[in-house]
């Protein structure tokens, strides 16, 4: 199952990435890469800098130094929407759904390059626009169905249960057709049954050709799902490897798994 990061040309490469907030070194000279078709997990305690890494990759934060390459091309410095268009989609820890939009609209909004997305095209209207809109709506409905949200199309996102909101967030992410999916704690706050459901979905996404970079607190899930694990502590990478290796790494046990001698 495990792939070493040097076997192929990686999909995403982080090189000596650093980011400070005032005096706080949130991320320090971090380098790692993500192989296409793999699940890579980023683990570490609270404040280790995991979400900052996501924000650097997606362009929500600018790095102080270092490079980010996606499919071999520099993406650091690009605005978030261009990075997303290049094929990197993310979920947010706090979901950031469009609360007062319907579930259907939440997913439909994410479909890339829609004809009716420009003001001019929507003013002009026409049969082709209508056909394109119908097609996109059908796609959004299909995604909602896959996520067991059929029947909730017209519910506002804020009216859904937390578990349903998490599924909706995943639906919106998938609608972007991004190749690399950054998932920020996808199973946090879910019931054990739903955690299993999510793990299955994440596996199937990889089988369908997606690549996943995961932030996850649940160690069991990380060990079970990941092909590669990167361990962060206070903004630095302190270990990386296949799950079994990392599990036996002493410093990991100290800093993350909480097993102190």
């Amino acid at each position: 199952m495990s792939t070493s990061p040097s076997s192929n040309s990686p999909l995403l490469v982080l090189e000596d990435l650093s980011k400070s907030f005032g005096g706080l070194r949130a991320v320090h000279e971090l380098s790692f890469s993500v192989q296409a078709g793999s699940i890579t997990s980023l683990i570490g305690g609270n404040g280790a800098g995991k979400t900052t890494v996501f924000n650097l990759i997606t362009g929500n934060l600018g790095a102080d130094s270092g490079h980010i390459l996606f499919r071999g091309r520099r993406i650091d410095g690009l605005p978030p929407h261009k990075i997303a268009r290049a094929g990197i989609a993310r979920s947010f820890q706090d979901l950031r759904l469009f609360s007062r939009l319907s579930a259907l609209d939440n997913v439909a909004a994410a479909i890339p390059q829609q004809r009716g997305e420009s003001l001019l095209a929507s003013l002009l209207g026409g049969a082709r626009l209508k056909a394109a809109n119908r097609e996109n709506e059908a796609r959004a409905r299909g995604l909602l169905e896959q996520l067991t949200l059929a029947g909730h199309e017209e519910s506002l996102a804020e009216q859904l249960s937390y578990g349903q909101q998490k599924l909706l967030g995943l639906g919106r992410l998938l609608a972007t057709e991004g190749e690399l999916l950054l998932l920020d704690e996808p199973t946090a706050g879910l019931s054990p049954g739903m955690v299993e459901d999510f793990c299955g979905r994440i596996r199937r996404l990889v089988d369908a050709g997606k690549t996943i970079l995961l932030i996850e607190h649940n160690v069991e899930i990380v060990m079970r799902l990941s092909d590669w694990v990167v361990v962060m502590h206070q903004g630095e990478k302190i270990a990386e490897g296949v799950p079994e290796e990392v599990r036996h790494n002493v410093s990991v046990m100290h800093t993350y798994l909480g097993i102190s001698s």
Partner: protein
Amino acid sequence: MDYVIYIGNLMALYATLAISLNLLVGYTGLISIAQAGMYGIGAYITALLALNFTHDLLLTTLLSAAGGVAVSLVVALPALRLRNEYFLIATMGFQSIIYSLFMNLELTGGPNGLWGVPHPQLFGFTFNTSLEKFLLAVALAVVCYVLALRVTRSPFGRLLRAVREDQTAVSSLGKSVYRIKFSIFIFSAIFAAAAGTLYTYSITAIDPVAFALDESIFIITIVIVGGTGSLNGSVLAAVLLILLPEAMKFLPIPALIAPQIRQISYGLLLVFFTRFRRQGLIGEYQDVLK
């Protein structure tokens, strides 16, 4: 009779102003206090053209709209990079600048404004009665309503509402928030400026006070009372809030303080609706202004 038609004319113009502003405030979450400024740009361009060059209705409307676009570019380029309350303050600043220009430029006639604007012509027909001008204002309001409806029901409209809900999430989906805001800001300015054109032709004399900050606040009051995110609400509230001061003329209020009473009653309405009925008269959303 002319008086009634004049009131109807104002209702139609303010419906246009409120619908176009609602696209910003209610749908996109852009609280702009510059709508009266855009309205004034259209009004002044029309007056200047009609007095000096042409009173062709189509030409003056198009050139006024172009002026509205030009000014909104100047406003939008810096202001749309700002978020929420900073955007509001920036538009308020532009509103003040535009008003000061009207008030102080020789070209715009200073505080006295411009008067004696000829009746508009279209394909040899002259609109010289107030009824004809009223029908023009209604036509503009209908066009504005229909196009706004089309926009809000399109995928673009969905993105407007998504921007209102969460800009960071919108950009994470590969959509340019700036482009979305920019497009709707320009669209809104075009209709505000066109309303200005018809206003100038309706009353044939304009002065800066009609386009002051108070007016911008009045237009936003219509949007809030009608309901942010409700086009029908904007139309309804435009009708009611234009009627309100007219109705108050039948009350025994001394003429000297009537304008103040009018301002106070609008202020009270604004406070009441933001505090107790955020969805407005028939609006869908409750906390756009949170």
